[in-house]
């Protein structure tokens, strides 16, 4: 088992290395991105350009530049942005993490409650009108893209009905916990709901399918034969087994979102989280920040995958030998 874990994490480190090399090469292979020209400013004198190139080390071979960048990122922790110069990359990410965590944890609670609730309801009420109605709601959630839904929510809460029904909605942006839990939650309420809707829909549909399969299993028939109540069968037996794939899916989704996949929600609602930082860095072609955020995101995705794999291996010995 230990050997498997080590192999798995060794592979994860290799993936991170490959991603960082790829990001680095794509950046320098793009024409028109000479960072020295961008830093030196418009119409810079060639001598000034040469000075900037030398002082930032852009005149050195690419592998050396790569190693230096990694050294600044991981050893001396002083990698700075090319665009907002003097801004350290790591503190920017550390600043952004609480925002993303606040968004994702809150949304996760909502979508898990909603998704499990809707899925269970639809599975249990199969054959009645409730099932297709709940599922329709689920499809509705899945098919609304976050960036569109977010803009519509903003249009309604910040503009059309801001003077009346939604006058209590605070301006867009993030309020840290230091301003009080109330303000924090109020600022995040609509982002939470917007982000949660999509996942709630997916999880509800998935859970319904699993639940219906489980309800046809032999052990459920056995439980029925033993005279257990339908509710007990549903909650204690069928739902419990059906939740296993949901939980592993949740692990992956959560990892990706914390890594910055909530980008669209963050951009639409003006939340300065990791996704927003990535978006901004891509807009500016700010290599150090892109590198920092991409590695951070990849780390969470790879970590989540590795944890899930290890858990699976723990549960299923066959995986270990594969």
């Amino acid at each position: 088992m230990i050997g498997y874990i080590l192999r798995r994490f060794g592979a994860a480190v290799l993936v991170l290395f490959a991603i960082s090399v790829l990001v680095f090469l794509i950046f320098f292979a793009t024409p028109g991105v000479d960072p020295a020209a961008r830093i030196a400013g418009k119409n810079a004198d060639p001598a000034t350009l040469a000075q900037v190139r030398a002082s930032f080390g852009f005149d050195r071979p690419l592998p050396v530049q790569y190693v230096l960048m990694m050294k600044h990122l991981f050893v001396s922790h002083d990698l700075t942005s090319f665009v907002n110069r003097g801004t350290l990359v790591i503190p920017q990410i550390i600043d952004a993490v609480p925002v993303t965590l606040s968004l994702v944890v809150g949304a996760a609670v909502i979508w898990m409650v909603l998704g499990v609730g809707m899925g269970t309801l639809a599975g249990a009420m199969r054959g009645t009108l409730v099932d297709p109605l709940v599922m329709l709601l689920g499809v509705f959630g899945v098919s609304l893209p976050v960036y569109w839904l977010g803009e519509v929510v903003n249009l309604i809460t910040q503009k059309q009905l801001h003077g009346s029904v939604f006058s209590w909605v605070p301006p867009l942006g993030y309020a840290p916990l230091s301003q009080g839990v109330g303000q924090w939650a109020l600022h995040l309420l609509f982002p939470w709901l917007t982000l949660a809707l999509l996942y709630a829909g997916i999880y509800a549909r998935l859970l319904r399918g699993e639940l219906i399969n489980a309800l046809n299993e032999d052990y459920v028939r056995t439980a029925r034969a033993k005279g257990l109540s339908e509710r007990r069968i549903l909650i204690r037996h069928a739902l419990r087994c059906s939740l296993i794939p949901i939980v592993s899916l949740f692990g992956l989704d959560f990892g990706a979102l914390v890594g910055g996949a909530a980008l669209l929600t963050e951009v639409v609602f003006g939340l300065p989280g990791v996704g927003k930082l990535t978006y901004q860095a891509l807009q500016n072609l700010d290599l150090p920040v892109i590198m920092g955020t991409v590695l951070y995101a990849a780390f969470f995705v790879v970590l989540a995958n590795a944890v899930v794999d290890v858990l699976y291996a723990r549960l299923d010995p066959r995986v270990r030998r594969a």
Partner: protein
Amino acid sequence: MKRITAIAGAALLAAGVAACSGGGDGAATSGAGTTGQTTQAAAGFQEQHKGGTLRLLAKAGDGTLDPHINYSNGQWQIFQALYDGLVSFRKVGGKAAYDIVPDLAKELPQVGADGKTYTFTLRTGVKFSNGDPVTVDDVVASFRRIFRISGPTSGTFYSGIVGAAECVKKPAGCTLDKGVVADAAANTVTINLVAPDSEFLQKLALPHAVVLPKGTPAKDQGTTPIPGTGPYKVESYNPNQLMKLVRNPNFTEWSRDAQPQGYPDEIDYNYGLTSEAAVTAVENGQADWIFDPLPADRLTEIGTSYEQQAHVNPLAAFWYIPVNVNLAPFDKPEARQALQWAFDKNALVKMFGGANLAQPACTILPPSFPGHADFCDFSQQDLAKAKQLVQQSGTAGQEVSIVVADDDVSKQIGEYARSVLEQIGYQAKVKVISTNIQFTYIQNSKNKVQLSVSQWYADYPAASNFLNVLLSCASYHPGSDSSINISGFCDKDADAKIAQAMKLDQTDPAASGKLWGEIDRELMQKGPIIPLFNPKQIDFVSKNVGNYQFHAQFHALLDQMWVK
């Protein structure tokens, strides 16, 4: 200076930017809906409006806080309330904004008979926000610092100072000991130039030449605020979230023209909202002003429901097509002339948002800009003539591509240009590339760009800032991403005339203005640049903002807006 547009949002904008008429003189243009409304400040400070917090919005921070390095429109505007140079542009709305007034210097300098020495007497009693007095040593150190940090304009704007050439090559040991000389006893600083420079005072009035404390480290200070002399100081800056300005406790107004005290007690510059969300926030009174250009689809609404809160001002800038004169087919003069006839500029203005937002351009120098001559040799689109010229040049049927940025306006212009080029006899296609790299990409001659769409915003009000910068041999650097002469145009005659006009600027501004106009006209005939239109700036402010003034050089005077 080139500024990336609205849609670009990138933080590496450039700045400068000027406009011909400001809010103050009521020159705000009105068009279909969006009307410039101006509150003329009564002379003198109005105590009753002092106080409160002014809340500004931008999509993102605009880079380093170091005024010697930052070359972006957004930060230059904010620096007006933070720093001072020896001289400054007059901080008022209207045309008077182009006047140079003494700032940290007691009066305008005495210029030697040869035009090469400038002697400034320093004002006494001015303090930095850290409490230290401003001395001649600070001035000398600041000039050295421009070179020691390899400032973006050190090799261009300030290269005329004696010793500058060596400093640009070897920044570390730069002393400028013969170029900038202090006399502590007389409280004077003398700047020696290699050759007379009629634009020197304007260059000194830009943020790259502000005076900073002598102890300021010779490296980019990034997000660490450097003490300044203006009415405000930066309390905190996080380019992803907020810049907070508070009053500088050591500031007392010494010249209302150069550095007037501000109205709000605090200025919060919030970063992160999209421009759509920012417009809504200003409508709701949650914020007071937006830096980024307004989204086109909100203009009607602003023009109809919030007319009183919108201010429109023309900018000293143009959108243009740089024509690569070194690549076929536009190495042929007839082919370039064909291009001058090919475009319907009114159609282009429509693509930019209509007459509210731009006016068609006939010349390289924008209207009301020094040296602008009112001619229009290619007034109307004439496709037949263009087609004939293409035939004459013998280039018909050749492949031509136009490289545009991926914002909506540029893409539309690209598509339009493609259809026009097809009509006049070329096989044309559009190449759309990311706004973030388009500007550097089209500059590099290695990328073999025939045509592109770009913009230029004036750094300071001088004709040379367009003609000399964009079209002289000196600003063409083959194979470099930093070669602002995108056309690769290098004409010895034109260069000689430009040099002559710059020389004439020092002695006879009226004659030089005329000469610039002629040069503009000749360059239009040679066709390295196709001017498209001159954009305008729309500022949208909240209901509580008063005393909006548009400064021709640095745009809205933020600290002069009152919120009480």
